[in-house]
């Protein structure tokens, strides 16, 4: 059963990713990307990272993609005609790269074998341990992040402001 859920979600995520690249219109790409993000959130839930899964849905599929869709509707990009030539290039590019990365991951990782009990105990206090780590060990980076967001807000406003004259 876990295998069935994993493969279902993985197929949805991969189809979404393919559609992001191959869809001729940017709006369809954005919608496919939302599907891909939600499938990934499902995979994170299956991994036991509930906090990250819901953060993924709220931030990625919610905030960021709404921003993307807003800009797409604002600018109204033209349809990019996607010839079969591009499709051949796409497959030529993606097949060797995919095989290479898969081989690298399979060969070179000294992964510890995880036991079922270990897995469950990690699952139990997911949010609590993240909060403890975030506000204790990573407090300074967390505060620096707020400055980063402030800079991003000011930057976005300054960039899009029209000159007076």
């Amino acid at each position, binding site marked *: 059963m876990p295998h069935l859920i994993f493969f279902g979600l993985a197929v949805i995520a991969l189809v979404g990713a393919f559609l992001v690249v191959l869809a001729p219109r940017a709006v369809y790409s954005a919608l496919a990307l939302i599907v891909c993000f939600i499938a990934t959130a499902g995979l*994170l839930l*299956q991994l036991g990272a509930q906090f990250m899964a819901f953060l993924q849905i709220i931030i990625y599929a919610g905030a960021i993609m709404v921003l993307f869709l807003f800009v797409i509707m604002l600018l109204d990009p033209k349809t990019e005609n996607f010839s079969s030539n591009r499709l051949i290039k796409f497959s030529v590019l993606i097949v060797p790269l995919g095989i290479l990365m898969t081989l690298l991951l399979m060969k070179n990782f000294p992964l510890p074998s995880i036991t079922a009990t270990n897995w469950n105990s990690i699952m139990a206090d997911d949010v609590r341990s993240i909060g403890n780590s975030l506000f204790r060990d990573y407090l300074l980076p967390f505060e620096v*992040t707020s400055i980063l967001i402030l800079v991003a807000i000011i930057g976005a406003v300054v960039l899009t402001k029209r000159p007076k004259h």
Partner: protein
Amino acid sequence: MVPIEYYLVLSALLFVIGSAGVILRRNIITMFMCIELMLNAVNLTFITLSKVWGQVDGQIIVFFVMTVTAAEAAVGLALIVVLSRRNNTLDADQANSMKW
């Protein structure tokens, strides 16, 4: 339990699809979305490995990556708006005024 390698292979495939999209597409917004796809794949790898090792640090990194991605999306989309206002197109090949 699903083997960990499946998650790693899936995120590698998502990353490869995203990078192929960045190389092949010429619409700036679509290229930007493909970058988001690659970041998403890396996040999946981080969380998988954090679960494998039983350490929460990987998820903290993903938290920071999400924050930086939000900031990057805001600034990047502002840049795209300015660029399209300037060039009247979203084609990345048209943005060549710095090319010699």
